[in-house]
């Protein structure tokens, strides 16, 4: 059993095998992700009851929370991949880290923007300078930008991999800070609703669409990540025989 796993992992890490397998998996991730997002959107907008305090404004949660979760998830995936790439010198891991960065940046932007839109009517402000939760999430957006510009600055791929991996690992300290910021400091932002002692503090009819959105976003992100890693692998292996066979074989 263990040996089979090991062989599977080794095969997965081989670029041509990954490239082909990912192409087969992407449509499944897209379809299942989009179905769940469609369910979450419709149920969240029209079937979940309005909140006792926030009325219909609370429905922004169905975009904001999945986006914020993915922004941190993408960063964690990058940090783990960067670590694996540095320690085991695995090129595919560096490709994953490089592919996840623009996606993480997009979802961080979405979390910040929808948080701002939510904050205006409820808290009374678009943005609160110096709030720990808001500031640490904004810093993550800059970490993503810093990572991408650092990569763009270094021509040699293996050097870019190493330098950017160090940056992302140093910045990883920000992820737990984002999560615990609302507990450690006085923040305008409320505490966690889902991940807390005593279970989620949200009604079932409101919870299910949210879980659907979170899972749907995750699958959708999976499809995007696989698609981006494929492009990254193709570029890195551009001088290899299998890429030559793949491209010329098809057009011949």
């Amino acid at each position, binding site marked *: 059993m263990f040996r089979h796993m090991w062989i599977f992992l080794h095969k997965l890490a081989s670029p041509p095998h990954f490239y082909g397998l990912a192409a087969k998996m992407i449509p499944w991730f897209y379809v299942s992700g989009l179905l769940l997002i469609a369910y979450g*959107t419709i149920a969240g*907008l029209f079937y979940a009851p309005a909140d006792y305090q926030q009325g*219909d404004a609370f*429905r*922004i949660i169905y*975009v904001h929370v999945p986006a914020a979760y993915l922004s941190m998830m993408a960063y964690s995936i990058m940090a783990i991949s960067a670590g694996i790439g540095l320690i085991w010198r695995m090129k595919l891991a560096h490709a994953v880290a490089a592919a996840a960065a*623009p996606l993480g940046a997009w979802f961080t932007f979405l979390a910040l923007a929808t948080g701002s839109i939510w904050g205006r009517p409820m808290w009374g402000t678009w943005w609160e300078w110096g709030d720990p939760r808001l500031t640490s999430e904004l810093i993550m957006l800059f970490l993503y930008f810093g990572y991408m510009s650092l990569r763009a600055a270094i021509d040699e791929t293996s050097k870019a991999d190493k330098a950017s991996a160090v940056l992302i690992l140093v910045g990883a300290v920000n992820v737990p800070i984002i999560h615990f910021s609302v507990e450690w400091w006085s923040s305008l932002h409320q505490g966690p609703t889902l991940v807390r002692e005593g279970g989620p503090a949200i009604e079932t009819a409101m919870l299910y669409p949210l879980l659907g959105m979170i899972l749907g976003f995750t699958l959708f992100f999976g499809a995007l990540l696989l698609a981006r890693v494929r492009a990254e692998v193709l570029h890195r292996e551009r001088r290899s025989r299998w890429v030559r066979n793949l491209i*010329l074989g098809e057009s011949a």
Partner: protein
Amino acid sequence: MMEMLAMGKYGAYVWSSFGLMFIVMIACVVQARSRHRKMYQQIESRLKAMDSAT
């Protein structure tokens, strides 16, 4: 129906959030696909140039 779409008095906030979500989703898909296409075409033209040179 109109009442459901109005979202109390928060229609503008709720709908702009969901609109932004769809814009970001579409942007992500378009970017990922065009990046793969770009890499593929780059390599293809380079390989063809190499082959015709020999």
